[in-house]
């Protein structure tokens, strides 16, 4: 529990698209009045947008390839199409140099344009990234269940909290040969990641940061969450079986014991030079993060490309998800190696559809008996997952960001009450909107099942 919970909830708040139109239209009208004319007559002419001379583009790709060659052996992910060998390389250059117009170019180092298999690069890198998340966040490593260390956490200043949230914390010795320390897991996590990461919102970079060498100073690629949430500290100072006090003075940061809190919350801790893992309870039955689609290349240039790939995350409601969350991943060619330079969340067909349905039902008094995830079930930790459990995306058109869904919604008594098919805009660069809906009552309205905060339908 931390302030990131507040941030995450706030991040989901956005004004209606209607406001945008109203504000901009109103301001434009005022402008027109000021200009004392009815219409804008600004014309822009004579502007031509070009991406550069064709041959220079060709050369730039070739130069990029020269840089990349060194990376082939080390990364193993640069894939040539057509298996061009050295002989073919020479022959092509000879053919190209016969043209007078490219005389100057032949004086440059002889390089050949290479076509990269972007999908294959993306597949390998994104798989590595997801695997590393599963290792880091969900403890997806082999361990010896017979070698464990146990501690008992509590807060000496708060007995009630200790009784509710403190208690036994057991870790098992990691036997996975890849990882001997938390730093090893961090190195694995950042292997496909560029040293400088861009964080983006709707495709626009809003901040950049450098991946530090030490995991204790690192943040996640996708958000600002500290990796200490999962990769804990050396806890050798605590005796196995001992009680670990989490109390500290909030006015004195120096009293915060990160090792103690690692025992309480982290997935991994180090103890006497060994790495230990806690087996984390999963949020749902979906297991770890997994891809639901293959990478789709959406944009490519000589030294960068972008792919879209959907991930089923192990959160509430994702158990039946066909798609999950879209990750928009940008790759850059850096010093001859491809690296991931940003990961942004895009469309979320199931989640956003559930939010749209929630809003749609909420505003219609005739459905006040329908459980839309707030209140009673929200308190039980179900939230939006309550709708997602019974929701199926039957069609999803990524080009227009529209879903067709079928959902069966419960009343507050837990009975199937509404059968709903709907067309929903799930554009992550917009608001969730039910565009059309066909709703059939399965169970008649019963006012005794009204949601506690619902406006009466009567």
């Amino acid at each position: 529990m931390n302030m990131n919970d507040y941030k995450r909830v706030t991040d989901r708040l956005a004004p209606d698209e209607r406001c945008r139109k109203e504000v901009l239209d109103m301001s434009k009208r005022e402008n027109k009045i000021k200009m004392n004319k009815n219409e804008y007559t600004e014309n822009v002419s004579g502007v031509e947008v070009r991406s550069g001379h064709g041959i220079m583009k060709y050369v730039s790709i070739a130069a990029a390839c020269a840089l990349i060659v060194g990376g082939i052996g080390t990364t193993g992910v640069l894939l040539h199409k057509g298996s061009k060998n050295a002989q073919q390389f020479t022959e092509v250059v000879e053919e190209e140099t016969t043209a007078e117009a490219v005389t100057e170019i032949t004086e440059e180092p002889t390089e050949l344009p290479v076509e990269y298999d972007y999908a294959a690069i993306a597949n390998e890198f994104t798989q590595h990234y997801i695997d590393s998340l599963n290792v880091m966040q969900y403890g997806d490593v082999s361990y010896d269940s017979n070698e464990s260390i146990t501690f008992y956490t509590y807060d000496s200043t708060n007995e009630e909290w200790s009784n509710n949230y403190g208690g036994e914390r057991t870790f098992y010795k990691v036997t996975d040969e890849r990882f001997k320390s938390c730093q090893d897991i961090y190195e694995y996590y950042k292997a496909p990641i560029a040293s400088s990461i861009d964080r983006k919102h709707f495709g626009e970079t809003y901040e950049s940061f450098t991946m530090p060498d030490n995991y204790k100073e690192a943040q996640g690629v996708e958000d600002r969450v500290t990796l200490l949430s999962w990769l804990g500290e050396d806890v050798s100072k605590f005796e196995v079986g001992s009680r670990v006090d989490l109390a500290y003075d909030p006015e004195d940061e120096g009293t915060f014991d990160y090792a103690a809190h690692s025992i309480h919350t982290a997935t991994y801790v180090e103890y006497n030079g060994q790495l230990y893992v806690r087996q984390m309870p999963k949020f749902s039955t979906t297991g770890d993060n997994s891809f639901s689609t293959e990478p789709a290349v959406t944009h490519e240039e000589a030294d960068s490309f972008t792919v879209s790939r959907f991930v089923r995350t192990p959160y509430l409601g994702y158990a039946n998800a066909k798609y999950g969350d879209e990750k928009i991943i940008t790759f850059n060619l850096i010093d001859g190696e491809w690296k991931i330079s940003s990961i942004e969340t895009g469309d979320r067909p199931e989640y956003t559809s559930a939010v749209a349905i929630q809003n749609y039902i909420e505003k219609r008094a005739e459905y006040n008996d329908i459980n839309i995830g707030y209140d009673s079930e929200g308190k039980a930790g179900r939230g939006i997952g309550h709708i997602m459990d019974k929701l199926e995306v039957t069609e999803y058109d990524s080009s227009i960001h529209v879903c067709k869904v079928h959902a069966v919604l419960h009343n507050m008594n837990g009975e199937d009450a509404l059968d709903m098919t709907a067309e929903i805009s799930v554009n992550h660069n917009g608001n969730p909107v039910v565009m059309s809906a066909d709703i059939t009552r399965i169970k008649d309205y019963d006012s005794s099942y009204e949601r506690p905060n619902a406006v009466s339908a009567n």
Partner: protein
Amino acid sequence: MMYPEKMTEIYDKYSNAVYRMAFAYCKNKADAEDIMQEVFIRRFSADIVFEDEAKEKSWLLKVTVNKCRDMFRSLRYKYSLTSIPLEEADIIYETQEESDVYHAVMSLPNKYRTVIHLFYYEEYTIKEISAITGDKETAIQTQLYRARKKLKDILGKELRL
């Protein structure tokens, strides 16, 4: 006079930040949207050239906070802000922790919510918050301390920050 393209750019860049600040203060969508619209109309009609985006954003948030205060000084809100319920309709919680922490923050008095939002969500410094709210830095520090203490009382545990 500002060109429409520039207006669109400014709106798209800052509307979420302005709306979220207003929502943190007003606790309901309708008022937050009204305030956001007023803020942008003021911005578009103001003949100001900012040195950089950071200054433009802090100016927008300052106007937002002032407009929120104006709204809550009006007769429409005769009760203190803490008695105004949080409008849940547009808030999505994915975990119980998110719900608990968000409700705890929203149960704070408005001046505490404001500094919590600016400090933890927008990640402004005490000095920057002072410039936005017009309160002294020492007052901001006190408000932050008291807000944290109240959160601890509500949640039964100091939040990890």
